[in-house]
């Protein structure tokens, strides 16, 4: 019996927040915002420090 394949061509959805609004697919971002999303780096949340406690800058 031949194996049936499903889901071909179905893309993952990637929800991102752009200037306050959620957008369901990166295709709808304009070029500048697409670049901005790609450039984002994560902000480390130092563990072990309680709320409002952080290293001196």
């Amino acid at each position, binding site marked *: 019996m031949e*194996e*049936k*394949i*499903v*889901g*071909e*061509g*179905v*893309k*993952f*959805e*990637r*929800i*991102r*927040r*752009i*200037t*306050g*609004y*959620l*957008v*369901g697919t990166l*295709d*709808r*971002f*304009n*070029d*500048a*915002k697409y*670049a*901005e999303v790609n*450039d*984002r*780096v*994560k*902000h*480390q*949340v*130092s*563990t072990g*420090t*309680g*709320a*409002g*406690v*952080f*290293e001196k*800058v």
Partner: protein
Amino acid sequence: MLESIVKRDGREVPFSIDKIATAIYRAAEATGGNNYEESLELASQVVNYIEQTGNTKPTVEEIQDAVEKVLIETGHARTAKKFILYRSDRSKFREMNTRLMKIYEGLTFTDAKENDIKRENANIDGDTAMGTMLKYGSEGAKQFNELYVLKPEHAKAHMEGDIHIHDLDFLTLTTTCCQIDLVKLFEGGFSTGHGYIREPNDIASYSSLACIALQSNQNDQHGGQSIPNFETAMAPGVRKTYRKLYVSNLSKGLELLCGYDDALEATKNLCKEVEATYKVSPILANDNGYQEKELELLVNKYKLPVEAVKRAQAFAIKKAAKEIDRKTFQAMEAFVHNLNTMHSRAGAQIPFSSINYGLDTSPEARLVIKNVLLATEAGMGNGETPIFPIHIFRIKDGINYNPGEPNYDLFKLACRVSAKRLFPNFSFMDSPFNLQYYKEGDYNTHVAYMGCRTRVMSNVYDPSREIVSGRGNLSFTSVNLPRLAIKAHGNVDVFFEDLDRKIDLIFDQLYDRFLIQGHRKVYNYPFLMGQGIWIDSEKLKPDDELMEVLKHGTLTLGFIGLAECLKALIGAHHGESVEARNMGLEIVSHMRSRCDMKAKETGLNFSLIATPAEGLSGRFVRMDKERYGVIPGVTDRPYYTNSFHVPVYYPISAFEKIKIEGPYHALTNGGHISYIEMDGDPSENLDAFEAVIRCMKENNMGYASINHPVDRDPVCGYTGIIGDVCPRCGRHDGEGISEEVLRRIKGYTKNLCSCDENPLEDADKIANPV
């Protein structure tokens, strides 16, 4: 002998002396002349002149040059002047036509994928018929406003990228946004413009009318709509539904325990009798003595056995509490679903909506908060993350911030939902600039935010009305900070002088726009003004102008790219050095004090916003790169950094970023928001998530949120983080998988092609208790 001429589009057409004569005659006519013979004579002089130059195929421009020359040389100065004017009008018109037609061509023949204008606003689908039609209108309106409505100096500054006039297409039409008081709107019912709607009677109608109100108002304004008091506005619906549920369950209890056939009508009348006699109703808190009075009546007047009545009441209380929870969940689920599927603005866009909640501690309001959060956590029909509304959870000491406070459980739930769905965002009522307005239990004094970050609270026009309801932003215009810094070549004094000139220009432009807006009439806004949504509009007649009531709104100066500005001005941005941090605060404080002074001077609410830059993030930098070349840290990326944010590419800890950005929230009274990008799936680390939110509050931010990736595989339904491969089903992006494997994963055997149910996702959707 001239035989043909070359038109502007390159085509050659036969030469006609009559056409030249007609053009001259028209110009002469405008100065009072009416001699066609003379025009014809002048036209032949024009022909002679061209032939003398040896040109046998002149262009239209060359002919017009010759006409001007001949008219002036033959002493027809006034006609020449008219001709030149007519010519430049035509070329202005033609230039507009060409630019606009180029844009239309792009809109018509390219996909959104290849066309940046179509993706200017990510929530409008530029590929649909209505989406494209909206863009035609919008682009045409922008050019019309640039050429014919704006003062030339404002148009020039906008077109050259010194400033950006937001929503220029709506310049002559309407204002930005409004905070809608549903409590006031629902009292006694309202009209949508397409029919009258009665005061709602249960939580389901409260929630659907809330959607209708958002949608109706959205058609009258170009920005988003906000409900400042969501839980308080919905609570009466819960109260009404609870009463019904209590009565119907009591009737069932009485039927069973006291042997009635059909007790519903009798129980309804009983409830009314208790209410009329003792002024108490059945309520969720069950603490107003209703049951005692009801028992008294049933036993003494209707001679029912005490024990049976008590048992029936206990049954009714228990069942009604359970059912009201379910009904409220369903109403909130419908609310979220509606806002994500209902369309406004000609079908191309769902309403931009925000709801604020978190502070009302009544049992009814708490039920609303809990269930709107749970409905958002559950997601849409197939578990998709809802895009709207934007949720804003308000945090306040004594109400929901610390363990033991009445809504602390809801704060915890808000963190959990935001860690999964990106909403709610959080607003902080204890930050001094918000706390100064705060009065306990009076929602009109609780600062609200509109999704995009707009904040409207102070009121110099009428200091006795510093309230949220019925007010909003009128318009805003942003200054290109990085350009001012590039032009200053490191000279801070030059920078501030230039900044002041741009601020003056923007204030002048905002005021011009306000005058246009003020001359609009009530009938132009059938819902916003016609239904009294906007403050004091209920006192106006349909033909009245809006000038006075609009003065409660804000006229707002915005800015973008503080980071790049600092980089260009002193070589470092505010993430990098203390000097830059101080300079950044100095610049933004200066802009704020200019706004305050302007507000004082005019009695109008000039305010400062940290520009969200939806359509702007690439525009300024593109122009500046063209002018000044690639400047490292300034024009070397395709975007300028959002308002006062530390650049997204700059590595910095969450707590440091919050500490640096916090002070800007106090300065930007027209709106602000900060973001933290969290690594991994925050649902796995809710303590860290909450610690970040707490840090935001301790640093006196006004409004903030946490970003994290939310991915979903539509094939297997997994929601979470997906790298290259789906962690649940193992497929790559776009890859097919065996139906057999999928079936095993999903744990059910239904035919996949014929159903859209998804047991796994449905399981995710069951409401979890707080």
